[in-house]
């Protein structure tokens, strides 16, 4: 199990490097962020898997739309389900304060790059991202393995 995790992480790092090289922030991007309310002036949610909503921001149109996170009430595997939602909504990038290992595996397989938030304001994080001030999320935490919570 430990070996598997190292491989996953190492594999993930390589993918990040590739996509970081390929992804120019001036490219058209669809950015996903877990949020507390359906308002771009609001806060980023401290959890990914159980965030109440996800915001998808389109860099070309400078527009955002919000959806409810149906994974939030899951008994377990919320991170996986939430990651599936991000994939299904065609995001290129996820900006989040944290992410579990199972969710990270889903996102990696879909070539979605994960960045770490700087503060908890949505608008600030979008600005930081455009100015290339955000770093990649490298601490993927041990998932809650089916017992997840924020």
């Amino acid at each position, binding site marked *: 199990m430990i070996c598997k995790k190292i491989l996953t992480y190492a594999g993930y790092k390589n993918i990040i490097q590739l996509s970081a090289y390929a992804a120019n922030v001036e490219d058209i991007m669809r950015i996903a962020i877990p949020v507390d309310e359906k308002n771009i002036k609001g806060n980023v949610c401290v959890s990914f898997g159980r965030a109440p909503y996800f915001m998808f921001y389109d860099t070309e149109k400078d527009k955002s739309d919000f959806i409810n996170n149906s994974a939030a009430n899951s*008994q377990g595997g919320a991170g996986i389900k939430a990651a599936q939602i991000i994939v299904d909504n065609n995001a290129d990038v996820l900006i989040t304060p944290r992410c579990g290992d199972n969710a990270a595996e889903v996102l990696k397989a879909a070539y979605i790059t994960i960045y770490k938030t700087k503060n908890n304001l949505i608008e600030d994080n979008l600005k930081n991202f455009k100015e290339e001030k955000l770093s990649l999320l490298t601490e993927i*935490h041990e998932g809650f393995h089916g017992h*997840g919570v924020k």
Partner: protein
Amino acid sequence: MKQLLILSGKGGTGKTTVAGAFIKLSNVKAYADCDIDAPNLHLIMEQGSKPENSDYYGLNKAVIDKNKCIKCNLCYENCRFDAINNCDGYEANIYDCEGCGVCEALCPSSAISLVPYKAGDMTLYRGYKVFSTAELKMGSGNSGMLVTEVKKKMRLASDADFSIIDGSPGIGCPVIASISGVSMVLIVAEPSLSGISDMKRIIETAERFNTKIAVCVNKYDTNTENNEKIKKFCKNNNIKFVGEIPFDKKAVEAVNNGLTIVDIDCAAGDAVRKVYKETIKILSN
């Protein structure tokens, strides 16, 4: 928040006794009892505030509407958890049901639905300190999720930079959930062959997580030979040994009076102070 989790592998080694003492010595602002199967910490910690109780809902459970049931037996044949009783009409056993939904999906007459089921009671004390605990209803599975919920409540102590968690015995679901995200695990071992065997398995479990691990021995003088075996094992495996606590009848008296071992004057109390000091050194580094 730095979190210290107290585990043991084997039951009855003294996790709660040590946890209670540590909580008193550190004057920590947030602590939790994650031994939700058999919570005991509340018995020795005085609560300065009123309890806030809430229900914990685990997985939904299957319920069969006998009026719609056509007795095709599909549910019984396909339930992997032997949760369908078919002797007197068809009924789902709430203790065995895991809420997988197979019966609901297969039922040709829509006689089965999954309904919310209360699996436990959560209690939160929010005064100067935050104390989170819960009790799982007997026979429940999904204990891991409740453990995570109990830990989560400690975040309400916004000014706490350190918290202590009293864990559960074993190596399964609730233990794995409790280890997730903690900064350090202190294992309270006992000097018996059973205790040593169990200690090794809990160490093996904890090592899968990126957390500091240390061992202390409780009731060490009940078998000094085994105590030395434990110390040797720790040395050979690069595991920090943070001290030993003697068997002390006064400790039993303290606990029976709802006190921690540092609330009274006793040998166990003196020893646990040293263990505490060593543990904090490791946690702070």
